[in-house]
């Protein structure tokens, strides 16, 4: 059997056709595809026309440009208006977009080559079934049966939408005429389809597959929080299947993540044990309130961390094994003289742990000042190697983001780490048996069980806790 396909294609001065009419020859094995021809591209039969897409006029009498970036490669399929490449001419950067739907068959230039106006830029194989005609609405409506209308022209206007958008609408049984287009010339965009669907089902759909989940940092605005809240309450039964057009994305592990992989893989070798406790910070909170303005006058922001760090150092003086390092062969323990206390910081790129050097000889104010310096360098991504190496003990204040108890991982070559939860106001009993409002914070320690035993960790924690619960006692032991 022979099928003859004749297509009328819009003629245009910048297109050169290889053939304007052609005959497709099907053999018997391809017959079963014929009834699906309209909506699907079949790869079994390739009777697409190869069209040479020429570089159109740039303006200002320019005849040559340099190809700077290809957005597609041979074999990719493109839709009309998709960007094909970026060319540059004398300080002007031009985005060349495709005129056709089809598959890219040949790129005529490599990067940084000169391309000529009026000469072919790419060869595109146009899909036989779709052609170059202006877009038509091929969608079915929900109450109507499938036999009726597969083509719709609404009031004589053709609804503008790219094939990808039309496909999405069709898969969701949406009538394009009912969707409000927000693109140029009232073109219907993918976002418009998603918004329309959201209105139908009462749920907010993820805006795009690329959207990341933003952790609830205090400084973030309410806008990202809203979709998450709404997404949690979806009891509305959905009558139509919602199409999520997201794709899995695989990326190599690099940079900060690679560093974390290395550190944590090494940490696995350490047998961790945990010890947790709760600290009553009521007195410390008061003390800090009094001292904050004094520090401010000296130009330093005073948080709770300097107190936690100094108390830890005082504790380490009594229990130096927590400030030690075990060698590779587990034959020798090195007791470090300096208390270089690391502070875990969450930056845009990831986790970094700069340390405050020699806390044993620093005052609380000096520690605060040093922390300020490290924090501003950290958020600007400018911490140097010296600040990031040589740590002997680490504190992680995860409580600023949230949480109570956690299981921190020791950072080799250290042997202990403490993670601080958030400060909560909770009812507690005082010495007289009365209930009072207490400021409670949880601490979770992890230590290397090869050289540290539970009792040591417990005693250190108790000492640290006593300094913080009764800050005046720190005065006795300050050097």
């Amino acid at each position, binding site marked *: 059997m022979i099928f003859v396909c004749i297509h009328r294609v819009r003629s245009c001065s910048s297109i050169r056709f290889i053939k304007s009419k052609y005959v497709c020859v099907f053999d018997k094995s391809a017959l079963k595809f014929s009834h699906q021809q309209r909506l699907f591209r079949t790869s079994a039969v390739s009777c697409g026309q190869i069209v040479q897409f020429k570089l159109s006029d*740039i*303006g*200002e009498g320019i005849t040559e440009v340099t190809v*700077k*970036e290809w957005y597609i490669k041979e074999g990719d399929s493109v839709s009309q*208006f998709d960007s094909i490449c*970026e060319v*540059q*001419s*004398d*300080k*002007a*950067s*031009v*985005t060349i*977009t495709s005129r056709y739907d089809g598959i890219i068959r040949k790129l005529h230039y490599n*990067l*940084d080559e000169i391309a000529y106006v009026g000469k072919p830029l790419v060869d595109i194989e146009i899909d036989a079934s779709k052609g170059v005609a202006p877009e038509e609405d091929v969608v079915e409506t929900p109450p109507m049966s499938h036999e009726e209308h597969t083509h719709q022209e609404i009031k004589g206007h053709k609804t503008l939408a790219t094939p990808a958008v039309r496909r999405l609408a069709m898969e969701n049984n949406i009538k394009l005429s009912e969707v409000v287009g*927000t693109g*140029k*010339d009232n073109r219907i965009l993918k976002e418009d389809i998603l918004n329309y669907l959201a209105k139908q089902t009462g749920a907010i759909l993820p805006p795009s597959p690329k959207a990341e989940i933003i952790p609830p940092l205090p400084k973030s605005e309410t806008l990202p929080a809203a979709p998450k809240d709404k997404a949690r309450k979806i009891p509305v039964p959905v009558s139509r299947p919602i199409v999520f057009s997201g794709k899995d994305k695989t990326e*190599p592990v*690099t*940079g*900060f993540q*690679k*560093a*974390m992989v*290395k*550190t944590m893989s*090494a940490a696995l070798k350490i047998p961790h044990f945990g010890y947790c406790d709760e600290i009553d910070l009521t007195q410390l909170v008061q003390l800090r309130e009094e001292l904050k303005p004094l520090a401010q006058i000296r130009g330093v922001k005073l948080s709770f961390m300097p107190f936690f760090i100094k108390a830890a150092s005082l504790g380490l003086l009594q229990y130096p094994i927590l400030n030690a*390092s075990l*060698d*590779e062969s587990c034959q020798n323990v*090195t007791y470090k003289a300096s208390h270089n206390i690391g502070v875990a910081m969450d930056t845009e*790129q*990831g986790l*970094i742990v700069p340390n405050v050097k020699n806390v044993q000889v620093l005052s609380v104010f000096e520690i605060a000042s040093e922390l300020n310096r490290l924090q501003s360098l950290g958020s*600007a*991504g*400018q*911490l*140097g*190697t*010296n600040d*990031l*190496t*040589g740590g002997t003990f680490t504190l992680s204040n995860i409580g600023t983001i949230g949480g109570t108890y956690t299981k921190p991982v020791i*950072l*080799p*070559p250290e042997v202990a780490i403490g993670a601080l939860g958030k400060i909560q106001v909770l009812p507690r009993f005082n010495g007289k048996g009365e209930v009072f409002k207490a400021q409670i914070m949880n601490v979770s320690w992890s230590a290397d069980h090869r050289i540290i035993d539970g009792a040591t960790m417990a005693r250190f924690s108790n000492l640290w806790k006593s300094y913080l619960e009764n800050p005046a006692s720190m005065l006795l032991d300050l050097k």
Partner: protein
Amino acid sequence: MVLQSSLKNCLQLSCILRTPKAGLRSTTSGSLIIQSISNDVYQNLAVEDWIHDHVNLENRQVLFLWRNSPAVVIGRHQNPWQECNLRLLRQKSIQLARRRSGGGTVYHDLGNINLTFFTTRKKYERMENLKLIVKALKALRPQLDVHVSDRYDILLDRQYKISGTAAKLGRTTAYHHCTLLCNTDKFVLSSVLKSPYKGLKSNATPSVPASVKNLFEEDPSLTCEVLLDAIAEEYATQHHIDHHITLINPADETVLPGINNKTKELQTWEWVYGKTPKFSISTCFNMVYKDSVLDVKVDMDVKHGRIEVCNIDLPEQWLPPALCSELVKSLVGSKFCPNETTTLATTLLGVCPQDDELHNRWNLLCENMVMLM
């Protein structure tokens, strides 16, 4: 002429910009002059993108006026390492942005005015726009010796560049934007636009350095406000519209839906650094350690801002070879960025046997590596 802003103006703007039919019915049909209330370079570049993508320019043209707090703006296909002193930028907290138009690198601060002329692609005509600016300047101060060069620069006294140009052409719309030096800090300008990085080889568009001068130096009464006003006046006259400047807020999603996504995209590392065309570095440096001077040779290929190939040539046994090859392996695939390199290097050290000598040597090598970025 007093700049007006009101809610009414903003609503009118959104009507005009989004629905061309409504625009024809509105009182201010025809061309439009808008000014950004923000000095954030990313927000302002996002406004350009937004107008380019969403506004129908068939029956009207738009002039967009904007100024930025200190920032270096590189062209679409440029290499920031080649064009500016990134170390200095980081130290001084000067922003780095990559625009979508071509051309060379410029330094912006509040003493510099940016002007963007939006037209359809057919009406794209840079000479006309620049002549408009020159006409406005001459109308203001007839004695000013300003003219447009054939490189689309505006020159003062035949030798000093006071304006540079770049353009972006899309499918149906185009924009031509240019700077105008009114009262910029020339000292900072010349120091940030000088690249200290040696041994770079790339096909990225190079900038053409030029001597610059501020209009303020020629005539102290020429402030940014005066110049903006004069140019708006000339534009209004030539386009037969009222001399009326509509203020827009580049953070306002209701007027410019989708603008915040555009701003975010311009701020991503992938756009600013990742869009750098492939380049290679071949350089050597000296390290002074105790009493000796060591020669180190580094060769790297960087693609999409990430290290593709890395080779570090050190004097033998100065550092454990296993550790060095670990470093090189880690660097491959990582961003060509001081922060990542420092993190990776310090992490590798952490899982190493404790040795002060090793630490000091390692830190020295890493600090020098970071200096290349």
